[in-house]
């Protein structure tokens, strides 16, 4: 092999590598504001965040971080994604710890109330939403892949121990074009994000058509074994951390199983000595026909109420400095809430026209 051939081969491999990068970028999973939200979090100034709120759609539809900043001077960032599986909580804690000196980590209780059995295709997809949103070479991404693989391998019969497509998502998403429903818009980058809070033209304004009876119970029911095991893993993980941990249940309709499991989970947390804020659906405050777009999620107006209440709770119970005076936060946080309200006003106008 001559020097020229060697140079040429290296050059060719570089061109191939850059083409690969472009293809992967084009075909990544991008529904999604999730990737953008996680990216924004990664790019926040070091040590400017008080804490994170980790969890499912029960978080990013409820906790309007921009409003909390405007009203209470809090910088509590929601690291949330649709249906986020419980096994990724530790990965996200690791992600949060990387750049930020956390004072508080709020953890969603919803993922612990679920049954994963028979739902693995969905949870495979939900896991990928998180994995794909994390930095490609970051340790938290590898951690998330590892945990997902372990769960899928143990829960799904006949699944492979090493599915390369978690690492290289292109292996899975390259066939996107095959779907009849595919449109080239799916390859475009998603819309702007709002500091981890979901703004959605439909969901933010929608309201439920009828009220719903809330179900409450004193009964107890065991958590799904995998969830219980993961809960203890999480507790074990945060034990020696120098930030505080608060479990959170946001107000929504719980079915029989979920309600009974929530009771069990509160028992466990009491026993283990961990704080939790269990917001039951308070009919004095919320109404499904005004504040919720379905029985599990607040719309923009419901989020306004919840953020008000939970923000007050946080300022009263924890000792946070007022970040509005921290100029390092100004660029990312100032004016976001105003922009949000403008957008909502615009959407409301559009909806009224129809």
């Amino acid at each position, binding site marked *: *092999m001559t020097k020229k051939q060697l140079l040429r081969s290296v050059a060719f491999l570089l061109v191939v590598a850059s083409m690969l990068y472009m293809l992967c970028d084009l075909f990544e999973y991008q529904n999604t504001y999730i990737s953008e939200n996680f990216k924004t979090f990664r790019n926040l100034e070091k040590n400017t965040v008080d804490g994170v709120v980790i969890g499912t759609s029960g978080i990013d539809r409820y906790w309007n971080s921009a409003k909390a900043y405007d009203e209470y001077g809090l910088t509590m960032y929601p690291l949330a994604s649709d249906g986020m599986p419980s096994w990724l909580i530790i990965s996200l804690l690791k992600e949060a710890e990387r750049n930020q000196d956390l004072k508080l980590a709020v953890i969603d209780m919803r993922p612990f109330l679920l049954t994963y059995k028979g739902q693995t295709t969905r949870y495979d997809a939900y896991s990928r939403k998180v994995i794909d949103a994390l930095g490609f070479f970051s340790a938290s991404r590898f951690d998330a892949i590892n945990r997902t693989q372990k769960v899928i391998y143990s829960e799904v019969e006949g699944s492979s121990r090493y599915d390369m497509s978690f690492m290289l998502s292109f292996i899975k998403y390259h066939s*996107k074009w*095959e779907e009849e429903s595919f449109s080239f818009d799916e390859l475009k980058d998603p819309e702007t994000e709002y500091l981890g809070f979901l703004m959605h033209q439909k969901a933010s304004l929608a309201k439920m058509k009828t009220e719903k009876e809330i179900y409450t119970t004193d009964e107890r029911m065991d958590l799904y074994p995998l969830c219980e095991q993961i809960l203890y893993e999480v507790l074990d993980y945060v034990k020696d951390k120098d930030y505080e941990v608060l479990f959170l249940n946001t107000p929504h309709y719980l079915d029989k199983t979920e309600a009974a499991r929530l009771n069990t989970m509160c028992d466990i947390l009491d026993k283990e000595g961990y704080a939790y804020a269990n917001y039951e659906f308070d009919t004095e405050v919320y109404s499904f026909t005004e504040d919720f777009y379905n029985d599990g999620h607040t719309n923009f107006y419901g989020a306004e109420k919840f953020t008000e209440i939970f923000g007050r709770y946080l300022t009263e119970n924890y000792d946070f400095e007022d970040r509005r005076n921290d100029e390092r936060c100004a660029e990312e946080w100032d004016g976001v809430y105003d922009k949000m309200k403008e957008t909502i006003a615009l959407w409301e106008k559009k909806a009224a026209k129809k």
Partner: protein
Amino acid sequence: MAYTSFGFFAFLAIVVFLYYIVPKRFQWAVLLVASYSFYLFSGIEQVAFIIGTTVVTYLAGRLMQKKRDAYKTELKNLGPDVTKEEKQAMKKAVNSKIKRIQAASVLINLFVLAMVKYLNFGIENLNSIFNLFRFDVEINPLKNIIVPLGISFYTFMSIGYLIDIGRGRYKAETHFGKFALFVSFFPSIVQGPINRYGDLGKQFSEEHKFDYTTVKFGAQLMLWGLFKKLVIADRVAPIIGTVFSADYEQYSGTVYFFGMLAYAVQIYCDFSGGIDIARGAAQMLGIDLPQNFERPYFSQSVAEYWRRWHITLGAWMREYVFYPVMLSKPVTKLSKFFRNRGWKYLAKIVPSSVTPFVVFFLIGIWHGASWQYVAFGLYNAIIVSTSVALAPVFKKMIEFFKINTEAFSWKLFCIVRTFLVLGVSKILVRAPGFTAAIHMVKSIFTDVDLDFIFALDGQIYELGVNSKNMFVALVGVLVLLTVSILQENGMKVRETLAKQNIIFRWAIYLIAIAVILVFGVYGPDYSASSFIYEAY
């Protein structure tokens, strides 16, 4: 480990790297370790089989060689005084010893192959015979027989080796490691080509220096194979599953015809693509594996097709079945019998139209242990035999009608005719049973559905491949067809490409890689619906 998996590419990269940095005299060892590592990926129990075959074949080869060498030294020692008769007697004696060793070792190999591949087929048939005669006996088929990876291929290679040594074609391999490598060489272990020791064995003793062009050509061949396999074959595959399923009766003859076309495309792209990957991988190691396909669908007769499709199997059958049968005593006697009576035509035709039945029966069951494959063999045998027997008639007809056999139109006619005749044999093996096969072939002529042809009712997209996939497959087939026509006209694609400007060349390579990556079928299924979060 599939040849199209990322694991295999990583494995190959490591092997290629080690192969060219170790001292040249250890290159064979790298390949042997690589081949056994590759084999172990498919399970540890299977290794016993291939080792058994290797040891038996190696020892039998050495033993035959020893007998032959002893005979030669003895002959030398006797000097010039020995008479012709003595010489012949000695030769006869040694040959019969050699033939005995040969027969024993070939039988052992065949026995193992028959046990794992054909035992249950035999039991099934035995049971139906018992049933027929109302014997109250039933043998239970063996469950969980492991069919070791590539056993048909390496067994045939070993048998070929034993026969060649017996015939004195070349000397037996003395180096056990190199022989074991010949049997287990990883690029060809899964689906061939069926190598002959005379061609492959000596390459393991040669020193292979890293050659940029060879390695590059190897990689290009692999890329081409991946294109055929992943972009075309795997994309049209669902059609075949749908059309030739148990619910076949709902379709019209035109759908069957379309299914046959899809199957012809799929099986060629899958098999020849796999072979290209194998040959490309070997070429990256400086090893030449024989051609296994020579654009078979351009054949103008069935006999020609079998010289261009799965060439190494055909060659194996010719060397070790066709010629031996044709030159065997009963056949030559029969031929003489006719000749002595002055029936020259029969003397010539009878052996050549009977032997194909033997060959194609074996080719049939080689492909699979079922009666459908036997029928497939017979069908091909009938066509080849008839065309041999009627060759003089055809020749007269062509002369009579003054057909210009050099004209393009005539060649095209022959190509299409051959393709369709073979299409029937493809339906024969792929249909779910004989009745289905006959129904399908009949419907093709009687139940034509024009709406389907022009995609008017869109049924064409309801056979498991939607319009987008169909479009990609169609473009893929057109690319393949173009390249095949160029090759058929003597163009060496890789060499021609190498002469082009670097920008053009690189553009081609990059497009090829991108096309395979995006349009290839691999990885877990993506279904957009599983990603939709119902909570909206």
